[in-house]
């Protein structure tokens, strides 16, 4: 079976069981399905039965204009070379998503990470509120689009102050562009592909 066949079988498998809002074939090794929030668990268990038995990644995308988070689950098959992305949109104001721990136990740390960086709660995963990477974080989750890292850094970490600016601006000096150009054409003249 070649790999484009793989993609069509996956499509059949998924659309038979679940209503797909949007599908995208990224290339012959990657397919993406956007489904409703309630269908994610069903779809993931179907895919796990079909051989996609490893959760390779779980993260979120912040669509601040739509006031929504998009969760992306990427599952991986050791026999067929196709990664499947399962996407679902959840509300941004009170983001919760039931855990997928019963299906993929490896999601434990991904869910903790998503909670730490986006503030998404995963009821069912007992440890999702424990800190993972950031320590003693005291602001809104830092990968949300309305978090301003520069303002946070300016307030928190003092900057080094320089008395003199040693950068010479272009206007203060005559431009070397013409000379550079001349040198370049000279070099290009010299290169003649080995011919004399």
């Amino acid at each position, binding site marked *: 079976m070649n790999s484009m066949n793989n993609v069509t079988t996956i499509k059949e498998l998924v659309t038979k069981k679940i209503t797909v809002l949007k599908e995208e074939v990224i290339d012959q090794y990657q397919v993406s399905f956007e489904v409703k929030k309630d269908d994610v668990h069903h779809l993931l268990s179907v895919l796990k039965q079909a051989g996609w038995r490893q959760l390779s990644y779980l993260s979120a995308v912040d669509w601040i204009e739509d006031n929504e988070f998009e969760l992306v689950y990427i599952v991986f098959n050791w026999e067929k070379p196709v990664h499947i992305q399962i996407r679902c949109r959840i509300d941004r104001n009170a983001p919760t998503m039931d855990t997928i721990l019963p299906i993929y136990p490896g999601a434990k740390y991904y869910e903790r990470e998503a909670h730490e960086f986006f503030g998404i709660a995963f009821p069912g995963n007992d440890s999702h509120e424990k800190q993972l*990477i950031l*320590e*003693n974080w005291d602001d809104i989750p830092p990968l949300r689009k309305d978090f301003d890292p520069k303002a946070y*850094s300016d307030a928190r*970490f*003092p*900057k*080094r102050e320089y008395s003199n600016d040693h950068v010479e601006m272009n206007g203060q000096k005559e431009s070397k562009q013409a000379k550079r150009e001349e040198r370049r054409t000279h070099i290009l003249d010299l290169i003649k592909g080995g011919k004399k």
Partner: protein
Amino acid sequence: MKSTKFSELTQEQIDRKWWEIGDFFRRNSLWMLMYCTGCCAIELPPAMTSAYDMERLGMGPMATPRQADVLLVTGYLSLKTLRRLIYTYEQMSEPKYIVGFGSCTINGGIYHDSHAVINQLDRYIPVDVYVAGCMPNTESVMNGFVDLMTLIKNKQANGWIKYKENNDWYKQNQKEALGEVKIKDEFHE
């Protein structure tokens, strides 16, 4: 009979002489503790192996902070690594020196606006030598080590004394940036 050649030395002068002798041996056998936080650490393999061969300066790697003389901070420091770095630095036995690599330790470098990365390393722990560059090439790394040796010779590598004298200032800065220096994670519970 008293020698006419040598005058009597005070205890302070004798101590000073001993320190000079100690410094001679120290600067010619610096043992490094490499805290490879960032990308500048990639400059250490060529500096250590046969291309530049750091061993000819008497420098070698050391496994534990208790036995090391120089702490190499190679690159940016997130708050999480800074906590561990302060722990490590305070465990080292005196005299101890720090070499900061790259522009990240000087002024934050390309991470100057990150929420996770500190900007000036010398507000939190004293730095004796900076090697500038993003990243510095291996020649400048070697040059930085030679500079450190010269500083030790001239008794200017006194960051560890500054850390002792201005400990309150350093501790306050650490507290401002980190909230709490104590490490609390699931491996330390």
